[in-house]
């Protein structure tokens, strides 16, 4: 286990007579801030990352990290230790009453480098990210640095920071607030954060035990051990199991927190009392987002910008997606690309994703915790029909698990040719197995990383190239599509090409690609039109 406590160190900025200037300051060293900082530093940008604590938060927070998150972390060089420690899973099972209704597989096809999901305690994920942050040149991570004031003007963002040695000030060209759902930066700006509040009370218990359950996500509606309510069971590393129980809306949180009471509930569920508690908490939740994520030079990402219910693993994963969307754009801006267009595209794309996540998690919450007698009857009826009819199984909603949103984006160029498959413009790259030029079994995600995670021309066979960006050629002498899965998953023939953005999303695709439309698509994707 990498360290989880970190010493405050006095920085040279604190001894200067006038505030130092930093191009990019990130506030909050959680998974989102750390991922963004590492991505920017890997792209060559100096980054200052501030965190108000001296340690990684304990307790029961995010546990499910998605394929898309793992693909981003692979680019950042941290996926391997996460995969080694995490519990890989792709199957879920839904129960109603005493019956199993159905099971589902989140990644039924092979040929992907990353699994559908891993479960990993958030503190492990953060510890690996912090370790990586320490290895990347240009990343300055300062613990026990609490931002107490921010203002901005044409010259930049003026930041006041409190430390154990007292306050100091600095300026930044851009400040990214990754400071969580209760974001102090958001409060300092007086920005809104509105949405739907749910009254239902849920109990989370992480318990340590030896258990024979498979590494699947099990969800119960109205189980015999917890009548009338829902329950969730999910495995984490170290023989720790996440149990999530819906409680009565009118339950008293202080009473329900009592470990003896929780133990009685879990003993009914598990059929034995042979477990110990790692964590107990009670929560209610909200689905909401900021009206705007970009406030001039101050940009919001992760829980600071949007919040969802936990059913669907859409909190931390959407924050990592924010980070990968923003990193290449901030890098480009600090190399002279147009700031207004690229930041507007960050806001437009990630608001679409936030709305998608909020809609999905709200729908799941409405099914899991029906708000009215009518909705409860509708759900009971759906669950009854689902015992015999496929259509109703598809309506049973125990959480729709996080998938990246395909953007309707100002950076995308719409298809001009007919396509019968493949990721459309605005969608993320789909992985396929390839054989590397040296003959090693590899993946498209590896090829993209080898090309530099920049704008990349991905072409099937010979074709044009674009000055200034790398070309990835799928062909026998290059990246060999041994299994034919590239041609299948991308619907390509020789001569076709995809233009990838630095975050691996599709900017444009062309049949029998030629230079002028590719050049125009690249200009648009850079925010230059």
């Amino acid at each position: 286990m990498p360290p989880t406590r970190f010493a405050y160190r006095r920085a040279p900025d604190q001894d200067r007579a006038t505030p130092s200037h930093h191009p990019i300051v990130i506030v909050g060293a959680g998974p989102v801030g750390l991922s963004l900082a590492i991505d920017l530093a890997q792209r060559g940008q100096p980054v200052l990352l501030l965190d108000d604590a001296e340690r990684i938060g304990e307790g029961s927070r995010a546990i499910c990290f998605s394929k898309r998150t793992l693909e981003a972390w692979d680019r950042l060089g941290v996926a391997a230790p996460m995969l080694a420690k995490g519990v890989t899973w792709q199957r879920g099972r839904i129960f109603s009453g005493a019956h199993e209704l159905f099971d589902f597989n989140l990644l039924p096809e092979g040929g992907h480098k990353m699994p559908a999901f891993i479960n990993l305690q958030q503190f492990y994920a953060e510890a690996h990210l912090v370790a990586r942050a320490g290895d990347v040149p240009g990343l300055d991570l300062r613990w026990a640095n609490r931002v107490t004031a921010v203002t901005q003007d044409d010259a930049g963002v003026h930041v006041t920071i409190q430390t154990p040695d007292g306050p100091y000030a600095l300026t930044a060209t851009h400040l990214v607030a990754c400071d969580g759902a209760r974001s102090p930066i958001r409060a300092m700006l007086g920005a809104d954060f509105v949405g739907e509040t749910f009254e239902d009370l849920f109990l989370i218990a992480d318990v340590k035990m030896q258990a024979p359950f498979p590494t699947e996500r099990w969800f119960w509606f109205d189980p015999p051990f917890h009548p009338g309510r829902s329950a969730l069971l999910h495995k984490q590393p170290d023989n720790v199991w996440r149990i999530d129980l819906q409680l009565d809306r009118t339950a008293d949180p202080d009473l329900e927190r009592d470990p003896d009471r929780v133990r009685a509930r879990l003993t009914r569920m598990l059929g034995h009392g042979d477990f110990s508690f790692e964590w107990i908490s009670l929560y209610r939740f909200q689905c909401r987002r900021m009206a705007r994520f970009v406030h001039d030079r101050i940009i919001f990402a992760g829980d600071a910008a949007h919040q969802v219910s936990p059913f669907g693993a859409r909190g931390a994963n959407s924050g990592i997606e924010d980070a990968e969307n923003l990193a290449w754009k901030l890098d480009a801006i600090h190399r002279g690309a147009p700031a207004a267009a690229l930041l507007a595209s960050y806001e437009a794309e990630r608001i679409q994703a936030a709305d998608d996540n909020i809609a999905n998690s709200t729908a799941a919450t409405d099914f899991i915790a029906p708000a009215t007698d009518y909705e409860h009857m509708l759900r009971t009826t759906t669950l009854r029909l689902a015992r015999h009819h496929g259509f109703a199984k598809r309506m049973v909603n125990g959480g729709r698990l996080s998938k990246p949103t395909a953007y309707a984006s100002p950076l995308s160029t719409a298809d001009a040719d007919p396509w019968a498959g493949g990721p459309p413009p605005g969608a993320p790259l789909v992985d396929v197995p390839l054989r590397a030029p040296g003959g090693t079994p590899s993946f498209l995600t590896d090829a993209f990383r080898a090309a530099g995670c920049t704008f990349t021309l991905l072409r099937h066979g010979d074709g044009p190239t674009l000055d200034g960006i790398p070309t990835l050629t799928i062909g026998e002498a290059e990246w060999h599509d041994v299994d034919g899965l590239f041609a299948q998953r991308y619907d390509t023939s020789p001569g076709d090409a995809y233009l990838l953005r630095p975050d691996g999303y599709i900017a444009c695709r062309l049949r029998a690609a030629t230079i002028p439309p590719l050049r125009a698509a690249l200009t648009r994707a850079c925010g230059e039109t």
Partner: protein
Amino acid sequence: MTLRTENNLPDPDTAYRLLVAAHRRLAPDLHASFDAALVLLLANHIGDPEILRQALAAAAASVEA
């Protein structure tokens, strides 16, 4: 024709959500008559008494289960 009971909707969650949202706008005593109106409209749209008979039988089985 046989009653289709496999999924026939592009996005089942949206259909469910539309039902929930429509009912949230109603006074509590109107849910049953709203649903009755909906059933009659959809029965007419389907326009096939045999399908309606099969759907009625499946619905009866679900409440008797």
